[in-house]
């Protein structure tokens, strides 16, 4: 077996082993493929843009939070490093604008009080049944892990390319696409009452009414108040909500990579030196054994 064919075999094996990884190509009614967006947090050095996260948080607070919970996030997270960059005082002030359930008190009653920085985001509905009852049967998913819980099929060979290009932004791309995907239903598709046609939603009929329109949320930093921009900002915010340690992960990753590459290089030369006498016995002095 020649060296070349060994390398080829190794490459094929590696590619296909990683390749067969995952990814159900479900043949459900083919939804349109979400267009890939530019994300500040993509790639090996990607980091969240705090300004964008703040805008996205504003959208969540003013629009999404009417129906969607964010149970796993606490107000203190808003001041965490690698997040929207609020100060602790700001995060506490934001918390104070929310009413959170507490109790029981000394009389055994549950009560509402102003939120504290240590509280978790209160949910818009007391339980799933209440949400369904209020919203015509649809259950708005919790948004804490939404950006990692949504994806779309890229098929072969796209999913292999993703491993090399580090494409992990299927979730935000999908969320951005959904927000921008409300169109008139194509001819032949009937949309039942209480649902809306969305070309990026698997099956086409989504129960969420179009949540945003141009100019709906006021930005104070001069960013265009367009639906496209809203989609991007809220998707970035939800990605942070799902993966709050991404900044730290990529920073540490770079350091680890540098270390491993240098370390592997040193080991390679050590190996070469140790094996030299075995591989080139004629170059060695006669050895005393």
């Amino acid at each position, binding site marked *: 077996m020649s*060296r070349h064919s060994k390398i080829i075999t190794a490459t094929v094996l590696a590619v296909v082993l990683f*390749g067969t990884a*995952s990814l*159900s190509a479900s043949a459900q009614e083919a939804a349109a493929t979400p267009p890939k967006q530019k994300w500040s947090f993509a790639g090996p050095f990607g980091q969240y843009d705090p300004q964008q996260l703040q805008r996205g948080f504003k959208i969540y607070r003013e629009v999404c939070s009417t129906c969607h919970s964010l149970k796993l996030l606490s107000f203190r997270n808003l001041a965490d490093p690698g997040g929207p960059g609020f100060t602790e005082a700001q995060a506490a002030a934001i918390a104070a604008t929310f009413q959170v359930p507490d109790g029981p008190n000394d009389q055994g009653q549950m009560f509402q009080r102003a939120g504290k920085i240590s509280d978790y985001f209160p949910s818009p509905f007391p339980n799933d049944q209440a949400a369904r009852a209020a919203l015509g049967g649809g259950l708005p998913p919790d948004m804490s892990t939404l950006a990692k819980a949504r994806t779309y099929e890229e098929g072969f060979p796209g999913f292999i390319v993703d491993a090399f290009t580090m494409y992990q932004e299927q979730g935000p791309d999908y969320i951005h696409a959904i927000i921008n995907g409300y169109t008139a239903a194509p001819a032949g598709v009937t949309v039942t009452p209480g649902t809306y046609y969305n070309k990026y939603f698997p099956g086409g009929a989504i129960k969420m009414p179009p949540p945003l329109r141009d100019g709906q949320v006021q930005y104070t930093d001069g960013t265009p108040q367009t639906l496209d921009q809203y989609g991007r900002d809220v998707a970035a915010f939800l990605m942070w909500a799902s993966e709050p*340690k991404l900044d730290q992960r990529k920073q540490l990753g770079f350091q680890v990579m540098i270390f491993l590459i240098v370390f592997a290089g040193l080991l390679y030369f*050590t190996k070469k030196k*140790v094996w030299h006498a075995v*591989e*080139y016995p004629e*170059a060695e002095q006669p050895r005393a054994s």
Partner: protein
Amino acid sequence: MSGHPTYQPQSAFMRWLERRLPIGSLIYSSFVAYPTPRNLNYWWTFGGILTFMLLVQMITGIVLAMHYTPNVNLAFDSVEGIMRDVNYGWLLRYIHANGASFFFVAVYIHIARGMYYGSYKEPREVLWILGVILFLLMVATGFMGYVLPWGQMSFWAATVITNLFSAIPLVGHGIVTWLWGGFAVGNPTLNRFYSLHYLLPFVIAGVVMLHIWALHVAGQNNPTGVEPKSEKDTVAFTPYATVKDAFFVALFCIVFAWFIFYIPNYLGHSDNYIPANPSQTPTHIVPEWYYLPFYAILRAIPSKLLGVTALATSIIVLAFMPWLDTSAVRSANYRPLYRQFLLIYFAAVIGLGYLGSQEPVGGYVIAARLLTAYYFAFFFIILPLLGLFEKTKPLPNSISEAVLGKDVSAGASGKAYKG
């Protein structure tokens, strides 16, 4: 190469210990002086990589267990708590989750290397069978670990896989109820999976010791498949094999780190970030990637009982390779036909893996059946017959001859078997 000296305790303490518990000389003879064939290529480093991965999984797993809660109402949130609030919890979890995948990458390469170079043949049958047992233990451990985050895929994979046992006639349904600890996958199931997921790695570690023991009795195979005959054919484990293994562990870690730090969710399924919901079936249930070839075999067969039998057989058959293969020559380098059929077998397994990730419709079903047929034909027809008909290439007289060429003084000319 200048002989393999026996252990001489260096310190007063080690001399004292040596007379009471000769652990120093055990380690010395096993991991320092132990002679390894000089022509081992880098495919032989995956045993060391697997040991490394087992340690990584055990250490990260023990710390994760300090923060995880095995309860259907709390499991998902406790994993998210690890990701958000535990110091470097995200790192521990991503190492552990991707570590499972890389453990399987390494074990598949390790198994493929054994098949290619005939490492299962006499006198290494027990070594090989212990390896198959290790693989089965890994499959069980990996599956139960995947259930613990209690996401949608966790729950439904647990449901589908445990339901396979219901195919067993008469007692099947009873066994499934017994496995579940109830009448559906629920809290008792999660609890016992957690308990076993913690236990099995230690069982694996025990079997690994037997595996290494058997290896050190039979000695390592090598790319020629010719047993070492003289001292010239071997080098000492330390430093030669140690430094080579260390170099490849480092390379392996670079790829591993790429996944951990840059694409940590690439090998996972997005549905597992949705909390388990017994009343909502995902559109398409798929196991982790490393089970996909076997999943494809299961689905390729229309009868459930036969499918489950085929699934079990597809792994168990490996243990019988030493007897199914009738050829006296070990290495595929000297078996041109076996080499071709084996490479097709590897391609078939990879193809089955892809088909396992696809919905079983139309051409995919036919392809899966063809590849499944080849999978079993390879073991039950091709392997036994090849030994009788195959014309093998002449074997070198010794490892040194293979490495250095016929004329040993010609030296550097024959480096074909290096790396």
